[in-house]
């Protein structure tokens, strides 16, 4: 079945440093979604990427979808303490089911 790998599992940064999490699918995806889960909270949708090579920005967050539509990344510029949480990618395959990656837990030292 479809597998979505996400690395790193954990990332600790100093406030102001950049952060990147990577997502790789075993199969070609129809789209990929990103979610953020604050500690003790529930996942909240951030963005969806659909097109090959697509790049989208939300303030300090940059999302990319690979040309082959099998990988994606989330980059945060100049992290802040409010960025703390677990970031999940979720890939939608040909069967339209959403498969979540294991997530990257980001901690930020003020």
């Amino acid at each position: 079945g479809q597998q979505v790998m996400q690395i790193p599992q954990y990332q600790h940064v100093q406030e102001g440093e950049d952060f990147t999490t990577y997502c790789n699918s075993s199969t070609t995806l129809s789209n990929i979604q990103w979610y953020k889960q604050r500690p003790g909270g529930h996942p909240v949708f951030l963005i969806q990427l659909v097109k090959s090579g697509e790049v989208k920005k939300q303030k300090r967050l940059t999302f990319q979808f690979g040309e082959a539509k099998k990988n994606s990344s989330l980059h945060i510029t100049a992290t802040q303490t409010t960025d703390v949480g677990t970031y999940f990618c979720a890939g939608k395959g040909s069967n339209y089911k959403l498969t979540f990656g294991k997530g990257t837990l980001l901690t930020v030292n003020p």
Partner: protein
Amino acid sequence: SAVISQKPSRDICQRGTSLTIQCQVDSQVTMMFWYRQQPGQSLTLIATANQGSEATYESGFVIDKFPISRPNLTFSTLTVSNMSPEDSSIYLCSVVVGGSTGELFFGEGSRLTVL
């Protein structure tokens, strides 16, 4: 968007008992799902709750263990039956809102601890 209320928010249960989790959405939704998130882990889809018919279960999940009801387009329940400590998890209700791009909206989750 959608506002999703889940009850209970947390519970401590004894081994062998069953617990029913309720999910109420503030608008009619077509797609409703139940996910499990074990401590520090990712989200695993248990089943798709189908209105007026039997739920569609993912591999590794069966109706006898996780019976699901969905009597209408705004409400669903998930029962965790004959619980064991391995069932200790957060159970999340999620929906796709009509007209959206397919993103999931999640409830606050129900944190179950089985002793």
